[in-house]
């Protein structure tokens, strides 16, 4: 993702104004708040998304809709019904993601453990973990000017790779666990390299080829789980063998409570983010990635091999998505994986990378936010439709990708240096 300055001259703030006396802090702060800089655009995107989400909750709820039929006779009914619906829905999301107020009461009364109190947060981090990896997979490719939609498929192959190594051997955990994780990364990298190779050799756009590979991987997973090699020996439904105990990803907080699912994949994800940051900003390869992403023709003229950069970038991205798969396979513990284990972490990685603006630090933060949305939505269903998390995510990143829209809706001022937008590319 490269920054691009597009500021029509008329919108330039204070252009040509003579410097006045030093403005007060409050004034500067106020100016910052009403400016479409990337921090404020992010904040406003979140606010707008939750507002739109509230409206959709209201119009789609049958009972609340019925109160609107007599709005002009008794407006307070409709308004209070709307308010309680939105409030209850968002509180339910909050309780599932951050802190359950009920448990807090019980904790205060002494009937709940401290571990119970941490459960929603543990869930949030559990869902955030794969998102960190898939977000990095999309974000890294973004920096090379590649739109990697294929994280879902790469993750599925990572799942299978880690699973196969995980159940095939019984080794000491210090060897087995890393081996299974690496297997996941390699499987993901191999699958991820395919769109890169296709783009480098034939010019096929990575968006279409990686979408097709996602569909292929999804069907492959359904088939693979059913085969005798992978299928569970004890259960009849579509589930695989579990990984050997020595390859199970250990839980992070098992000392506090066994029900806290967050495991060591989370620190691994943060390590992956640090690695990606180092790769992008401190290594020669990262320089090549960013140069190609910024201007491939100039990079080619400077002697960089564009094709091989595409292939290696996609392979590394695939490897990161493969790690998400490994984290899932090895994290489910004593049960095997099903067609449902992958959820939509790969697709959510796209929104994570966009919200994190393809920066490793931003991606970790975005992954935790969207992990929280997912944990909240899953715990609040069926009172709140579970897809509210997808919906809110999509609205948020739509605004992030189109900051001019936020600027227009809220009448914000253009910041010095222009809006941060994405560089456009054709087929």
């Amino acid at each position, binding site marked *: 993702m490269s920054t691009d300055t597009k500021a029509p001259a008329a919108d330039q703030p204070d252009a040509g104004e003579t410097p006045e006396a030093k403005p007060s802090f409050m004034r500067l702060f106020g100016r910052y708040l009403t400016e479409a800089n990337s921090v404020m655009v992010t904040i406003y995107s979140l606010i707008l998304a939750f507002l739109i989400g509230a409206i959709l909750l209201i119009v*789609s709820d049958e009972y609340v809709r019925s109160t609107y039929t007599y709005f002009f006779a008794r407006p307070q009914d409709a308004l209070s019904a709307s308010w309680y619906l939105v409030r209850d829905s968002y509180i339910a999301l909050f309780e599932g993601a951050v802190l359950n107020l009920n448990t807090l009461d019980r904790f205060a009364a002494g009937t709940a453990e401290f571990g119970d109190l941490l459960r929603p947060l543990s869930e949030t981090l559990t869902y955030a973990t794969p998102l960190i990896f898939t977000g990095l997979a999309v974000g890294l490719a973004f920096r090379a000017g590649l739109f990697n939609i294929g994280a879902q498929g790469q993750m599925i192959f990572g799942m299978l790779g880690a699973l196969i190594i995980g159940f095939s051997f019984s080794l000491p955990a210090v060897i087995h666990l890393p081996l299974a994780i690496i297997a996941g990364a390699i499987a993901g990298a191999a699958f991820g390299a395919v769109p890169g190779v296709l783009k480098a050799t034939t010019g096929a756009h990575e968006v279409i080829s990686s979408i*097709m590979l996602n569909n*292929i991987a999804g069907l492959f997973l359904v088939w693979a789980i059913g085969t005798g090699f992978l299928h569970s020996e004890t259960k009849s439904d579509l589930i695989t063998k579990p990984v050997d105990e020595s390859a199970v990803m250990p839980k992070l907080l098992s000392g506090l409570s066994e029900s806290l699912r967050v495991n060591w994949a989370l620190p691994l994800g943060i390590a992956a983010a640090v690695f990606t940051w180092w790769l992008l900003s401190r290594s020669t390869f990262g320089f090549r990635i960013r140069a190609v992403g910024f201007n491939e023709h100039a990079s080619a003229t400077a002697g960089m091999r564009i094709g091989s950069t595409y292939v290696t970038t996609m392979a590394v991205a695939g490897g990161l998505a493969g790690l998400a798969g490994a984290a899932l396979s090895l994290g489910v513990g004593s049960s095997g994986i099903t067609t449902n284990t992958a959820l939509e972490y790969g697709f959510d990685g796209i929104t994570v990378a966009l919200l994190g603006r393809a920066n490793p630090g931003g991606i970790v933060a975005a992954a935790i936010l969207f992990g929280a949305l997912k944990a909240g939505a899953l715990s609040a269903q069926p009172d709140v439709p579970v*897809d509210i998390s997808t919906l809110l995510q999509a609205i948020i990143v739509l605004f992030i990708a*189109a900051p001019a829209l936020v600027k227009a809706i809220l009448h914000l001022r253009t910041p010095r240096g222009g809006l941060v937008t994405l560089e456009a590319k054709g087929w």
Partner: protein
Amino acid sequence: MAVDTMTSSPAVVDESVPTRFIKPGTAFSVLGLLLIVIAFAVVSTGDTTTIAFDRTLTDVEWALPTTACVAVLGAIAAAAGAWMLVGLPKRRLKLVSAVAVTAFVLGLLFWAYSQPGTVFRAESILAGALFLSLPYLFGALSGVVCERSGVINIGIEGQFLMGAFTGVLVANVTGNVYAGMVGAMIAGLLSTMLLALLATKYQVNQVVVGVILNLLALGFTSFMYDQLKKAEGLNSAFSVPTLSWGPLADIPVLGPVLFQQKIFVYIGLALVFVVWFLLYRTRWGLRTRAVGEHPAAADSMGVNVNRLRFWNVTLAGLISGFGGAWFTIANSLAFGKNMTAGLGFVALAVMIVGRWNPLGVLAGALIFGFTTQVARDLDASGGSVVPGEFLQMLPYVVTLVVVAGLIGKAKAPAADGVPYNPGDK
């Protein structure tokens, strides 16, 4: 990429001089020989492939010896490949390639339907192929209208979802299935209007926003699906009647394929010619193509580039929204989460196969429809040697091959995906 296509000028070649085509020649020769090997090594000698005319001439069944048929078809493909290797006039290349591909595909079909219990029900399969080609056709036509004016529409998948969902909802609310179709079109229009606004006024990255709009449509329709499930009778299946054209419907093969279909088929076929006519025979079409190839030139001739793009993309939503109604109304299904299953993206591949031309799109859509239909039929018959999941992968694999094999040669409109800012000149 836009820049490359601008600089390459067409070389003047005498088309009647024999030329060698090494790559396709080798490929077809190898594939043809492979078929011959299959015919003798894999197929048992007594196997037959049965072809039936199941709708009109129900008592006719042709049982053909599989080995001989596959071997002959393989020989034809190999011979075509050999001719390319030896050298053939360039103007014959298309025809010879078409013959080679057809022979190879038919050979595979003869092999696939040689298992006992499988019958190639020619009329049902061809009629089904035409019907299944429709989502690809509508999606790709919508893509053509957008991309010919220089806006990439990756959001077709999302427009399908919105159309599929809204179609059923409106049909349920009004009780009229045709109102549902109109509702689907309007839903598609509103979705593309957002893309059009972002692409022209706000000049965002069209691919990124297209993908986000897909996620938005997926989230929105799934969310609404869960919410509306609580209320009764908002997501019941509606269907349209199959139109039968009297005596024409009884013609063998042609009757069931062309004269016994739902209204979607006729609208789809008509649209191909309408879009073709509009693009190549009207002022609007000329302007659209000009804006897609060289917006600055069109601008200097007085065309408002961004306004034209805005309306083209917005109106293309009518087509993809209607395509969405195919998933629910034409198939007599209620809406289901993510029921479009990536076909919107396959439609983009069809658009590329069809080289951004409505007639080419029709041919591409038919090929994809046929592949999908055969895969489904083999899967359902249970006589297939290949697992069902792999058969379902076929359209995706074909898309991959097509996109990889054609994209360099099939040229996108030069300004496709590049936002136009009149101030940048």
